[in-house]
């Protein structure tokens, strides 16, 4: 492993890929696609509104990756750099479709009213094992809630809680502060939690 300048490590295999591509071994682009397209496609599915948009995001991301990989300076890991490109493509696609301004999430609105609905004990689903809860229906319910999050919140929740990036890595990928990541993440989680709470309360 080669130690990175800032955070994380560049795995040997990624280093070899980058070095090979920089030397002009274009065949290695295919290796890069094989290795990272599953991650970028699933990232796209989580942050885009449709499968078609996710596919467009992956293609546009790889076009940019191929274009700029020769200038990649290893200030971040290759994986983080690719996610930074994908996140920026996501914003570009959003601007292109002229999507309307999204509503901000207010902490006040997400805070349960202790006096109006005093939930004194956690509901049963909070204690059930994940494997028992997470069927196709619930997965769909969660993905639907995530898709209704305003984009800045959705990106943070997906990167932190689904793609496994740390607070600092997420801040770096999205070019925002770690404090901002924490604020957005908390509100995004509360939004999804509210949706799940409602789902379980109205289940037959």
């Amino acid at each position, binding site marked *: 492993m080669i130690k990175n300048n800032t955070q994380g490590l560049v795995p040997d295999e990624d280093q070899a890929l980058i070095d090979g591509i920089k030397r002009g071994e274009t065949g290695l682009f295919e290796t890069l696609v094989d290795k990272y397209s599953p991650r970028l496609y699933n990232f796209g599915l989580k942050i885009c509104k449709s499968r078609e948009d996710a*596919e467009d995001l992956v*293609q546009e991301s790889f*076009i940019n990756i191929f274009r700029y990989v020769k200038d990649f300076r290893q200030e971040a890991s290759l994986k983080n750099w690719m996610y930074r490109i994908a996140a920026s493509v996501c914003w570009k696609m959003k601007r292109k479709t002229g999507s309307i301004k999204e509503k901000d999430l207010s902490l006040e609105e997400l805070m349960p009213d202790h006096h109006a609905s005093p939930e004194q004990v956690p509901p049963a689903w909070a*204690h059930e094992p994940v494997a028992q809860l997470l069927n196709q229906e619930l*997965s769909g319910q969660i993905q639907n809630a995530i898709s209704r999050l305003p984009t800045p919140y959705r990106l943070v929740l997906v990167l932190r*809680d*689904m793609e496994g990036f740390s607070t600092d890595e997420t801040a770096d990928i999205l070019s925002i502060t770690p404090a901002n990541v924490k604020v957005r993440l*908390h509100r995004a989680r509360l939004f999804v939690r509210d949706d799940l709470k409602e789902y379980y309360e109205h289940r037959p």
Partner: protein
Amino acid sequence: MNTDHNHDMCKAYFAKLSEFIDQELGDDVCRDIQKHLESCGCCNACLETLKKTIQLCANIKDKPVPSELSRKLKHMIRHRI
């Protein structure tokens, strides 16, 4: 569990529940929140449901890349480079 306590601190601690779960707070704040949770059923219920929400999000299964997309990507490599 004391259900008759003053909820004044709930709002302040509610804002920090994710950082509490992610262990991103200092020891003093963690201790204060832990103490509050022991006496506040509402905040404790919120914490437990929030933890489960995070676990559920983390465990949603990935989907395979459609073969048509893989084909398009390979085609793109051959024709653009």
